[in-house]
């Protein structure tokens, strides 16, 4: 039987008001503006764009404001909004080799063409508080070199690829349009395009943990950060009504190419293999984690045993989406009164049966003990 219970509307409406007040905090403190979040919390904005799977810095900033900085709640807001928008088409694949570089490093090659460009990174900060930031109002200005960076910034795997020592990455026959998990249900084993899309919108923390597990031996790869690059890339689109490509503007991307040793198999000579990560905004940890797990998920292609979680596509893909995961975990908050009542009665009945069953056996023992 199903019993619908009504009530709680007034309480729910009151939570909306209380939430709004909690979100606002102390009214004596100036309210944070969306533009401030967009400009000054850019890394949080990038995370929300990735996990919400929609590049729009203003919307991500608004989502963060509305969600009081809860990245997953913010991603949920973005996903919900996205469903209200028509899709006009797919872009041409972005050309990361033509990125306007703001950061580009390689841990594998010291003297790579174009150089090591550290860019805006926390890597070399001392992790000591800067209490000056508590005072507000700063206008830092970065120094400029006499000339801009070289236009030639080849991607590191392309350099190794020229020697034939790198697993090649070429489009399959016919350069097919990719699978879209927002339109079609995924099935397993999942192809690379499905895995990459799934990870690109996956939870950074989940992928970080999996990537870490690979490094600690639960995946058996020895990775090098072949290259990490961050900067702006043009998005190009061919509208059906025009038939020629249009440059829609730029987005910020972070790309990571992990290089892994591979001792070869029956069919493949010893070479380096690759893991790939690509993410919206400056999202280095995300791109690196994705690249580690991407390589681990290639286990089947290289004939490696898929013994560990990071190598199992079904495990990784079904659990990386934090909006889905949060939904299923948090649905436990919904009323389960009837379910629970049922279980309660079941336990009581089993208990009573057990006591009834044990009663004749225990009685003589008790007598003996007397």
């Amino acid at each position: 039987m199903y019993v619908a219970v009504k009530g709680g509307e007034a309480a729910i409406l009151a939570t909306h008001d209380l939430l709004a007040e909690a979100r606002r905090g102390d009214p004596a403190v100036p309210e944070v503006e969306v533009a401030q979040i967009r400009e000054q919390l850019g890394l949080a904005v990038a995370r929300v764009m990735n996990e919400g799977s929609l590049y729009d810095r203003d919307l991500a900033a608004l989502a963060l404001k509305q969600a009081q900085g809860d990245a997953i709640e913010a991603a949920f807001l973005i996903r919900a909004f996205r469903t209200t928008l028509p899709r006009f088409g797919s872009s041409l694949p972005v050309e990361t080799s033509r990125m306007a570089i703001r950061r580009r490093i390689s841990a594998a090659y010291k003297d790579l063409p174009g150089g090591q460009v550290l860019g805006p990174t926390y890597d070399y900060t001392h992790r000591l508080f800067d209490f000056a930031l508590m005072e507000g109002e700063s206008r830092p200005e970065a120094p400029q070199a006499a000339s801009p960076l070289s236009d030639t910034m080849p991607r590191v795997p392309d350099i190794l690829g020229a020697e034939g020592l790198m697993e090649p990455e070429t489009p399959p026959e016919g350069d097919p349009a990719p699978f879209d998990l927002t339109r079609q249900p995924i099935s397993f084993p999942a192809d690379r395009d499905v895995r990459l899309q799934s990870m690109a919108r996956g939870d950074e923390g989940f992928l970080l943990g999996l990537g870490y597990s690979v490094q600690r031996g639960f995946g058996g790869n020895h990775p090098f950060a072949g290259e990490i690059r961050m900067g702006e890339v043009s998005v190009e689109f061919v509208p059906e009504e025009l038939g020629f490509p249009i440059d829609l503007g730029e987005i910020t991307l972070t790309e990571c190419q992990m290089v892994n040793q591979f001792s070869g198999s029956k069919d493949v000579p010893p070479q380096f293999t690759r893991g790939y990560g690509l993410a919206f905004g400056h999202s280095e940890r995300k791109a690196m984690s994705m690249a580690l797990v991407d390589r681990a998920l290639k286990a089947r292609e290289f004939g490696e045993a898929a013994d560990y979680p990071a190598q199992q596509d079904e495990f990784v893909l079904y659990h990386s989406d934090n909006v889905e995961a949060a939904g299923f975990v948090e649905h436990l908050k919904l009323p389960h009164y009837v379910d629970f009542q049922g279980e309660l009665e079941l336990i009581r009945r089993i208990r009573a049966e057990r006591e009834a069953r044990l009663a004749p056996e225990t009685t003589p023992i008790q007598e003996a003990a007397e």
Partner: protein
Amino acid sequence: MQSNEPLARRQGHFAILARAALAEVEAILADAPAIPPFSVLKQPETGTIMVEGRAGGGGRRFNLGEATMTRCAIRLEDGTIGFSYALGRNTEKARKAAVLDALLQNEPPGGPMHEAMRRLADRQQRARDEASRKAAATKVEFFTMVRGEG
């Protein structure tokens, strides 16, 4: 190849306008000779585009995620059709950029609107240059320590 020049020029204009602020588009229209009447063929509309990447940068295509974009199409009375396509959600800019696209098609290269577009492109290039020079200031210059003699 000469016949491709108008196409390449127009593609360049789309790229510049996509990166321009609403105020910059308005400034160029303000300088234009009287804007002829036009009808809207496609109302400014915000939607998304699925951004594709390639595995490893050059391999199999995959869907990275969507981005918001806004498009618009207008038609001048003489039949010229102007389009606007740009990332983001600015519908007002989309309408004005579509008008500008139509006007630019009718103005000979070197005209005042073309000149204004060139100046806008220069400003955008300078901003890119500055970002690149700031990045270049963080470029590592390795040097080798002397390891001893002989």
